[in-house]
């Protein structure tokens, strides 16, 4: 996402530079091979660490690293707002003093670099008059450096202030404009409104924001239509919000009618790829990956124009709030349902549809008992399968004996299960949408935290493994109540002990 913005950035035209080209080629290789993307991103993470060692005079390599850094840092800083629900739940977890220290020292270094760069421009002003293109290059570099500093600064400060983070980092017009001159003010205001209710649970806030929402219309009308950023916004949502799966929409409290409802068809939902190469026919999940792939088909696809994001036709309307409906009639997520709860993103739709309305075709290779319809769920389960060796007669499993015994002490008739006991599933494995969706909601928040740490934004196939409902480590104290934690929003204790555990485990 941000990477795309940088690459397609008309303001920083470095494509003539051979070194830069090499770098891009490397990147495109990684796009061709999704499996290697993890590795590639790991090296990105390290980028900030070796950054300060760079010689300030090595502009070219600095520019290259700047790009990396932008990618890394922006990924880092843009992440939390997408997962604001989690961020507000436990803000202290976001703050890492070590990271902040390294960020600050990086900033210091960076400022020195810009200083010397500008100094060199002043010193060599006479020479530049004869070579204006070189001067322009230097200026661009200085601008890019400054951008980088600003982003770094905001992201550093933002991690301290989770509520500000959301608004500042993603929605600060100035910042976006720096990164992307095509940035549209209007859209950001909308984003601000959209994000706020999640960050501030306070009802006063929500009321305030609903008012804001109503008043926001004035902004949409007069302003020019959103440009490329809108087009890009969707992929971002899709890929990064996908962790929030299918549960978040109901927490938004969007008034009915304030958003557009889209309903994808079953085939569309289950289709593995949506972007195909016109030359070789290879399918991709993301257009950016396709564009990178196209580079291999000839030089004409390497031009900045070809690599840039396809922009929407000018004149189209302001991007409306879009929510999704499940095509399964009777489902609570279907728009015909009385208590319709829309799904937030396409990825939510995909995960919801697979979990709730598809066969569970992935079987755990360890226990051969649990089945999943989303492969990421399976992977997460397999990571933990067999670890929870303490099981109650109700089917709930625990990683620690004292937790199990605490559970047994709490509920009448529950006993620890013997190793050979076969726990009969008394609850059905599927069909309970409420359960599944609540699960999804939790899962989403939770998963986004994982995403923050892993920074594995592009390697979605890999990173999805972290987002399965089976990953309960984050719940901590909720273990006391077994899987009942999922109903926490309604009533923490309003669950029937017998048999629910098995069901939630399956879903």
């Amino acid at each position, binding site marked *: 996402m941000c990477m795309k913005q940088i690459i397609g950035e008309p303001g920083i035209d470095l494509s003539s530079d051979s070194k830069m080209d090499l770098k891009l080629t490397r990147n495109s290789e990684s796009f061709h091979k999704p499996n290697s993307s993890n590795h590639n991103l790991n090296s990105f993470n390290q980028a900030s660490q070796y950054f300060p060692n760079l010689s300030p005079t090595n502009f070219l390599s600095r520019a290259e690293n700047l790009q990396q850094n932008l990618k890394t840092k922006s990924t880092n800083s843009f992440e939390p707002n997408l997962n604001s629900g989690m961020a507000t739940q436990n803000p202290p977890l976001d703050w890492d003093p070590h990271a902040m220290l390294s960020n600050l020292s990086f900033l210091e270094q960076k400022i020195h670099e810009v200083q010397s760069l500008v100094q060199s421009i002043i010193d060599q002003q006479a020479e530049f008059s004869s070579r204006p293109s070189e001067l322009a290059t230097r200026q661009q570099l200085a601008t890019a450096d400054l951008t980088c500093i600003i982003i770094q600064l905001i992201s550093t400060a933002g991690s301290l202030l989770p509520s500000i983070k959301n608004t500042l980092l993603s929605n600060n017009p100035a910042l976006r404009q720096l990164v992307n001159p095509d940035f549209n003010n209007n859209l950001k205001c909308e984003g601000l409104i959209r994000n706020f209710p999640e960050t501030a649970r306070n009802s006063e806030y929500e009321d305030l924001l609903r008012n804001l929402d109503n008043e926001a219309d004035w902004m949409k009308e007069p302003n020019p239509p959103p440009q490329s950023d809108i087009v890009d916004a969707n992929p971002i949502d899709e890929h990064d919000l996908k962790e929030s799966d299918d549960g978040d929409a109901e927490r938004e409290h969007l008034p009915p009618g304030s958003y557009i409802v889209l309903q994808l068809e079953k085939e569309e939902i289950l289709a593995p790829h949506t972007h195909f190469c016109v030359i070789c026919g290879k399918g991709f999940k993301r257009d950016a990956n396709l564009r990178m792939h196209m580079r291999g088909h000839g030089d004409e696809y390497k031009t900045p124009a070809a690599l840039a994001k396809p922009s929407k036709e000018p004149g189209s309307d302001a991007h409306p709030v879009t929510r999704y409906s499940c095509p399964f009639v009777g489902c609570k997520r279907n728009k015909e349902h009385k208590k319709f709860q829309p799904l937030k993103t396409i990825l939510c739709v995909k995960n919801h549809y697979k979990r709730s309305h598809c066969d569970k075709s992935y079987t755990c290779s360890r226990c051969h008992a649990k089945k999943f319809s989303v492969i990421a769920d399976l992977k997460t389960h397999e990571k933990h399968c067999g670890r929870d060796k303490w099981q109650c007669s109700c089917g709930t499993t625990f990683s620690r*004996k*004292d937790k199990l*015994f605490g559970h*047994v*002490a709490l509920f009448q*008739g*529950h*006993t*620890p299960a*013997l190793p*050979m006991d076969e726990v009969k599933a008394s609850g059905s494995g599927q069909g309970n949408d409420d359960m599944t969706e609540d699960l999804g909601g939790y899962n989403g928040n939770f998963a986004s935290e994982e995403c923050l740490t892993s920074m594995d934004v592009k390697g979605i196939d890999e990173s999805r493994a972290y987002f399965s409902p089976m990953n309960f480590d984050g719940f901590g104290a909720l273990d006391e109540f077994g899987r009942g934690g999922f109903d926490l929003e309604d009533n923490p204790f309003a669950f029937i002990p017998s048999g629910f555990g098995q069901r939630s485990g399956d879903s």
Partner: protein
Amino acid sequence: MCDITAVLTVDLLAQVLDWLHDSRDLKSCRLVSRAFLQAERMHRRAIRALRLGPLPVLLRRYVGSLQSLDLSSCPSLDDSALSLSIPCPNNLRSVSLSRATGVTWRGLEVLASVCPRIEAIDISHCVGFGDREAAAVAKACWLKELRIDKCLNVTDVGLAKVAVGCSRLEKLGIKWCFEISDIGIDLLVKKCLELRELDISYLKVGNESLRSIASLSKLEDLALVGCEYIDDEGLYFLSNGNCSLQSIDISRCENVTSVGLTTLAEGQQRLRKINAGNCSPVLTSTFVSKLCTLGDTLIILKLDKLQLLASALEIVGKNCRNLLEIGLSKCNCVNDEGISWLVEGCTHLSTIDLTCCLLVTDKSLLSIATCCRGVKCLRLESCVLISEKGLDQIASCCTDLKEIDLTDCNVNDNALKCLSRCSELLVLKVGLCSGVSDIGLSFIGTNCSKLLELDLYRCTAITDDGLAAISNGCKRLKKLNLCYCNQISDTGLAHLQLEELSDLELRGMVRITSSGITAMAMGCRSLTQLDLKRCYSIDDAGMWALAQYTENLRQLTISYCTVTGLGLCHILGSLRCLQDVKMVHLSWVSIEGFELALRASCGKLKKVKLLGKLQDVLSSELLQTLQSRGCRIRWVNKPLVFKG
């Protein structure tokens, strides 16, 4: 002939039967007539089976009235035998399956399901039992009493099963279940609020368990023997808890000091029994002085191996006036002064244990005789300074004396002459007293006709005549120890015509031969334990006699005898109750002999002691069969010698 039942109705008979406790008396009664048999049948509440064979018939006969069934002596009990022998429906309340290693969880589940009113189960010493067995037992939801001592594989999970399944439990023994931890105890306490008696001896639990246990409001009896992780802090929890303990056993808790005992005595004011033996070696007088606050309630106090000065005993004597039993075993500091202080106050003492109190002399016996006329049990092992003078005082004053232990006290015939005045004497131990001879025994034989147990270990002066005197006088003897009395020969042994004798030790009596054993076996039909180790002259003929006459023999030691394979096969094959055989150094038995004999015994034996070298030569199939039937083999590592 007039029917006796016309005069003596069944109701009256039943009332008579209430007063009969001896099994032989009951047997005589059964044999009077059909009516008596019927009355006995209706009256009987408990059966202790010695053999499995007749059990189904017996149970069918008694099914209506039977409430208690003891199967702990049936060696070959397994699941199918268990489910076959228990009739359905029944009124069984209590079943003992102690040491029933052949039973599995399936059998226990059947038991729990066919005995709906069962209230007590004993599966102690089934060393292979674990959580699954505990879970099976837990299905008996009306259970009030459960013993799972030494079920080595029971963990917290099994205990939790029991705790959840049997929430009405009042008595629980989980001694030696080493896998149980604080977590399990905590859950038990939360689920079984009715617990009155709890035995967690030798468990590796800590103070947290005591913190949980202290909340049991009905707990009266707590045993914590050898809980090495419990210290004074745990006792502090107990003393401040909800429970009002009547009995506590904290012996062998190494980390408990007098501080903890003091707080316990302060907090638990209703304690009647305290066993603080073998705790920390030093005991300050503060604990003993705190005992005075317990005052009149305390009846049993055991302070073994603690350093008690005379002043401490004085405090006990002045304050605990209702004390019935005191244990001062191995208290090195106890002297005559202390004893006199003690007995002056505690005049009701009936049991005094002064084992290894080396400073005790005749003066102590004199003060005991003067103050505690009702003393019944006196343990004076290794009190080398006492003599017949002291015992004379005891015998003349304490006419109710039932048990006296004079092992290693160097007493002589005169002492026995004095003691023979105690006609109520039941247990007499004069082992290692080389001064005891036939003369002394003749006094005992003449006067102590009620004697049940006599220990003459290494009383080497005893000859055939002495044994004859005992055999003729003490017809009710159940236990007799003649080890290393090597002057006794077949003639003496032939005098042993003791119908009730069940336990006989003849170790190292080199003069006796098979003919003596044959004569003895014919006279002592009730033998269940026999030790013939190092009776070098006993051969196959002795085995034949044992196989023929002592059908109830359960435990047999024939190491070093000159038994051949044939005799071994015969005795192991014939004796149906045999459970435990020690047969080391049977140099006349070939490998095939061992193999065949063990095969012949298969299914019955629970414990075998064999030469270690045989481990390699005996067929693995046999060893596996033995072990799968619940037999434990102890291999002794000594050189293997073959003859013949």
